């Protein structure tokens, strides 16, 4: 039996929160640079240049990439024969609180959401999901997502016959309606299948897979390319000022679902895709 100490997981998560808040991942930088070449709008290219410059300024000065330092979601996936010792939820909450004060992160979480909306003052509580896998190792992932792009995300329960065409139409329509205000160029996490509650989680977790890593399912891999192409035909462009680059990547994750269902969720992420996964 492998035993993971909750306090050590907390320290790890704390450093991950700090790192992702100020450092744009290498794969995102590379994708932005590559897509910049395809942008015919001068203003669009200028926006991508500013995004890349912002990443440099943020990393150099240890400043948050975006003032919306987001809501932290922590995904712990336990491998076989693995246990956690200690107060996992408490340690992870403390980790986020410490990172928020050390990193001068914005307090963006409020309690009593439909009434007082009192700011919790330290970005707690984070979203914590503990999963299991049959693998040897365990992983922890942290993603920080801003409120604007979270507002733009959607779920639809399609008819089973809608197929990939229905999935793509749905996602493209969401981006058409919401894309300009969710800080494009976007990265789209798409969850296909599962259940009403499972599809959005698949979508968000799909964003964890690096942009330079192919989808292991060749069909889904093709659909990712098709989706990027279709979304980039919308003309929304970088910063929403018009252009060819509305999206720099789509990541699809699938799960089996009920015979009567085809759930599809799209987790829209702004260009500041802040996430990291570590194997333990």
């Amino acid at each position: 039996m492998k035993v993971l100490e909750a306090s050590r997981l907390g320290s790890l998560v704390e450093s991950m929160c700090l790192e992702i808040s100020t450092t744009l991942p290498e794969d995102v930088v590379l994708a932005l640079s590559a897509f910049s070449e395809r942008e015919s709008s001068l203003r669009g290219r200028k926006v991508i240049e500013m995004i890349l410059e912002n990443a440099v300024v943020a990393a150099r000065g240890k400043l948050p990439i975006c003032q919306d330092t987001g809501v932290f979601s922590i995904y712990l996936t336990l491998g076989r024969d693995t246990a956690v010792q200690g107060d996992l939820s408490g340690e992870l909450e403390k980790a986020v609180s410490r990172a928020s004060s050390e990193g001068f992160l914005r307090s963006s979480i409020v309690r009593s959401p439909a009434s007082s909306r009192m700011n919790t003052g330290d970005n707690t509580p984070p979203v914590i999901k503990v999963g299991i896998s049959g693998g040897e190792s365990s992983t922890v992932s942290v993603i920080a997502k801003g409120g604007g792009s979270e507002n733009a995300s959607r779920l639809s329960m399609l008819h089973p016959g809608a197929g990939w065409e229905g999935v793509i139409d749905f996602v493209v329509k969401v981006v058409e309606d919401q894309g300009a205000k969710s800080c494009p160029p976007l990265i789209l996490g798409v969850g296909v299948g599962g259940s009403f509650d499972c599809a959005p989680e698949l979508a968000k977790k799909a964003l964890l897979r690096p942009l330079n890593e192919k989808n292991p399912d060749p069909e889904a891999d093709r659909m990712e390319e098709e989706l990027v192409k279709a979304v980039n035909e919308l003309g929304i462009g970088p910063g929403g000022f018009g252009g060819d680059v509305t999206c720099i990547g789509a990541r699809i994750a699938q799960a089996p679902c009920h015979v009567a269902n085809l759930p599809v969720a799209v987790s829209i992420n702004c260009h500041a895709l802040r996430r990291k996964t570590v194997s333990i």
Partner: protein
Amino acid sequence: MARVLRLPLSREDVQDLKVGEEVLLSGPALTMRDASLKRYETILNEGKQLPVDLKGELIFHAGPTPAARGRPCGSIGPTTTARMDRFLSWMLESGVVAVLGKGPRGTGHAGLHGRHGAVYFAAVGGLGALYAGMVEEIELMAWEDLGPEAIYRVELKDFPAIVAIDSRGEDMYVSLYTDYRKRG
């Protein structure tokens, strides 16, 4: 070449700005967003004492991060303006001359700008670290309990933006995507 604008602006100053025009904003602005606008609206409706007068102001829809040691301002940048549409009417009636935010407004709101001769400047979202260097000072004006959503006085320095809605109510976003759109 971007037009350099010195804040505060009067409605005369913004009269000849045209949609799509690039500007650089320098001078004092007030940050207000969801929570502070809602509280301001409540107090306004109750006819009670307001902490700041909005007449002649540029309202920056933003919520900064706390400033780290030795820095005037933390990361700061525009949030989604469309969420503030619901407050626009009384903001403009209170004398707001310009709004700085990001993204398109909802249908019908450009007309409100036109009726009051006020402009909407759009900036790029997600550039908080870069924009931090364009804010020389920040001072809490009201409602510290709202944290990042409190009202702050910020001193902008060459802050780049685009005229998204001009004082005649022309909206840049209405036909912005047609040139690049390849879908039916």
